[in-house]
């Protein structure tokens, strides 16, 4: 294949944000909630921002009987109703809809994959997508293995047109439900695909504010010297939601807060705060460092679970001034359910930088407020040379990285209150994304789908990363499974979680930050 060796001389030196290589995006589970709420609006936004390659089309694949026209209508409906869509342009939507197709098939039916394969080949001719494929598996995790196996058997996991072309697979979290199942799933996928073909998506990493953690740490020399155990007292990571389970009882009963948030989003945030600087921001270096720090977390031993982790479940209460039912009263939830809707952990990272610095991580449903924040609390000045009576309660300096909402960064410092006496008050130095750049935070799915089109795995999880995270969560889940909680529900909806979570920090002489 002489043509496969030819290099495009016109590509070199072009500064392109957009994906340039033709690609066919195939969505498994095209009739599902994720597709309509997130993926289709994200694809539209990419089209509107002219970031899609010219050779592009999208094909939905699912069991639900649907025609191309039906799928195109669901694309249009998704764009019309999604809050993620920035600007609706009829001509962009029409052009995208013209490139949208649908193939009906059961994920377990091998013949359906042959039908899909034939269709994709036909579309390659129509749209010039050159055989490049991204399979986005937006299905329940239990189907990942089956789909990948069937793709392989249908000869669809390798690029037919030669090594310059690609087949990539995006899979959604949760990746496994414990360490054993994650390992089994990894093994199954790696028997069909190379690691460089697998894009395990954690949409948190696609958020601008999450990526800004890296910029904040590694593009600002001022913070690096103090980013360690000598100056940092502790770190708090909060992923709080005021919403309940929003009708997703089946999913949540199976998952719970630890699998839904702590194992992935929260540990991702922890790794970005705590990782060592990587030598470059390429996929290998970055992920090596990220995984290294997760691996350095001290494993929680079975007999330590009760002192290092707290679980909770919400009962009835009030959120934003309105009545909220308890978790067990949610439709589809078992009346005696012991699924945790809240969890808090104390992690210790055993390395030179972080020895002795606790990382407190909490997440929950139906908390007082929706807020994802990282608080870095610094040690107090060793000896304030002011009269103690005038100081009042001198707070630790702290740095808050607000991931969502009201994205930004706040540094709390002590300042002298104007006047003849030496009075000190804590004041905020505040950086707000909205006020500074105005630009709306693009949906993380846009960024991550685009990265996949470009073949950039930096912001995707790797086999060893997934397994390292599960290794820290597994003992806790096992211990909790072995001992049913007697106190559930143990926090009221609209509060900041169970008293035990406060006690977790109080035992160290600390308190959760009030958000």
């Amino acid at each position, binding site marked *: 294949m002489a*043509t496969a060796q030819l290099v495009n*001389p016109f590509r*070199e030196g072009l500064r392109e944000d957009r994906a*340039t290589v033709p690609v066919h995006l195939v969505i498994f589970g095209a009739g599902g909630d994720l597709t309509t709420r997130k993926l289709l609006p994200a694809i539209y936004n990419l089209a509107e921002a002219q970031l899609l*390659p*010219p050779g592009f089309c999208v094909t939905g694949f699912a069991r639900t009987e649907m025609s191309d026209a039906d799928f195109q209508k669901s694309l249009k409906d998704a764009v019309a109703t999604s809050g993620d869509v920035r600007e609706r342009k009829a*001509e962009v939507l029409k052009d995208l809809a013209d490139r949208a197709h649908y193939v009906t098939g059961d994920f377990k039916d091998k013949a359906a994959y042959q039908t899909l394969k034939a269709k994709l080949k036909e579309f390659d001719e129509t749209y010039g997508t050159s055989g490049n494929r991204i399979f986005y598996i937006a299905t329940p995790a239990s189907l990942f293995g089956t789909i990948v196996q069937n793709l392989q058997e249908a000869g669809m996991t390798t690029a037919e047109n030669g090594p310059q072309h690609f087949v990539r697979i995006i899979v959604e979290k949760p990746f496994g439900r414990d360490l054993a199942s994650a390992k089994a799933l990894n093994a199954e996928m790696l028997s069909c695909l190379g690691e460089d073909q697998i894009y395990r998506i954690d949409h948190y990493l696609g958020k601008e504010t999450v990526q800004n953690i890296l910029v904040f740490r590694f593009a600002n020399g001022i913070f690096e010297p103090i980013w360690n155990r000598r100056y940092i007292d502790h770190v708090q990571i909060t992923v709080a939601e005021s919403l309940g389970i929003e009708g997703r009882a089946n999913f949540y009963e199976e998952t719970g807060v630890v699998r839904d948030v702590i194992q992935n989003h929260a540990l991702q945030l922890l790794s970005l705060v705590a990782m060592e600087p990587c030598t470059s921001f390429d996929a290998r270096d970055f992920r090596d460092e990220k995984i290294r720090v997760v691996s350095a977390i001290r494993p929680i031993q079975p007999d330590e679970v009760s002192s290092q982790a707290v679980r909770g479940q919400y009962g009835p209460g009030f959120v934003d001034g309105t009545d909220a039912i308890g978790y067990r009263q949610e439709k589809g939830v078992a009346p005696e359910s012991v699924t945790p809707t809240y969890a808090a952990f104390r992690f210790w990272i055993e390395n030179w930088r972080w020895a002795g610095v606790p990382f407190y991580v909490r997440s929950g449903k139906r908390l007082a407020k929706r807020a994802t924040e990282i608080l870095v609390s610094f040690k107090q000045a060793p000896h304030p040379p002011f009269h103690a009576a005038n100081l009042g309660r001198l707070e630790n300096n702290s740095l808050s990285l607000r991931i969502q909402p009201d994205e930004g960064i706040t540094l709390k410092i002590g300042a002298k209150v104007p006047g003849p006496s030496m009075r000190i008050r804590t004041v905020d130095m505040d950086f707000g994304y909205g006020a*500074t750049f105005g630009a709306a935070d693009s949906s993380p799915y846009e960024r991550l789908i685009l990265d996949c089109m470009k073949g950039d795995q930096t912001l995707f999880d790797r086999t060893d990363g997934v397994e390292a995270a599960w290794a820290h969560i597994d003992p806790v889940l096992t211990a909790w499974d072995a001992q049913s909680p007697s106190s559930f529900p143990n926090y009221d909806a609209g509060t900041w979680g169970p008293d035990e979570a406060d006690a977790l920090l109080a035992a160290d002489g600390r308190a959760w930050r009030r958000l």
Partner: protein
Amino acid sequence: MTPNNGAAVAVPAGFIAIDAGDVDAALATRWETLALKGEAPVSRACTLNLLTFVEQLPEMADVSAVVDQVAATHPIRAIAFALDDSIPDGAVRTWVGGLCDGHEDSSHVCSEGVALAAHSNCALRMASAITSSLKRDVPAMLWWRGGSPFVLRLFKQVAPLASKIIVDSIRFGDGAASLDTLRRLAEYRNGSMVVSDFNWERTRAWRATVAACFDDPAVIALIDEFDHCTVECAGKVDGPIAGPARALLFAGWIVQRRPQLAGRSSIVGRRGARGAEGSISAVTLSSSRSRATLAVTWDVAAHRLIGCATDGSGVQIRCLNFAADPQDDASLLERCIATFDRNPLFDAVLRAE
């Protein structure tokens, strides 16, 4: 608005006249006032000083409208300055404004605007007013919205303040002479100033389209067939022309990327082609040995570029549609200020031409 000297100057709405030298104090007061009223974020961010040379004083408000669009996503201090003989010889007239004006949403980006005007005899005074108006510790770019900067003494005074100059080579008289001016700018002060050109940015979609067509395996397979390039421009005549700057830049890029086409490129005018005079309307790579072609054309109605390739026997093998870039000044300016870095490709094209 009538400044304190009585001369009528079309400064942007909402700007207030102040004494030269009071820029920082006046802006600080406005911020404090807005913060106290709860109408603006308490934080005050600034990423760039954008110095804009306004060739004609009446254009000041137009320039401000363009800069406002850019400032909607970049917190900047925009300093527009003009020399005009309607301003009495003497002090530099100064106005400040901006600061979230017109935006009810307090989360909107807040930028700062400074307008300066002086008699053409006052270049040195103007340079000094610009220097004192700069936001400290923030980098500066110079948008030279005028003809060749080398004819004005003011340029020599202002250029050292900026690390990048943004120009529109159309304003340099177009044609080969404008490329000479671009080259002089690129070499100015030992090449220490980065140059961006609106005209080069206008070719971006054409370059991206040609590149994207060759991403296709069937088209890249034809690349050695192509031994001629024709760039077609909207013009007053049909047939070969000396070439407007945009076409020269594009042809220079083709040759820089594909040296085999050196001396085998032509620029032709096309009467009646849609678009402003000098704008590219079609690009064709062709073969003297076969009927292989890659033709990229501008579909005016659909506002997109269409790239179609035929194989050696003249059979069409691929047709792809590409979105066109916005070509308005605000979009071009936004692209130009996106980076402080030198663009090696642009530099290479200037050298190659």
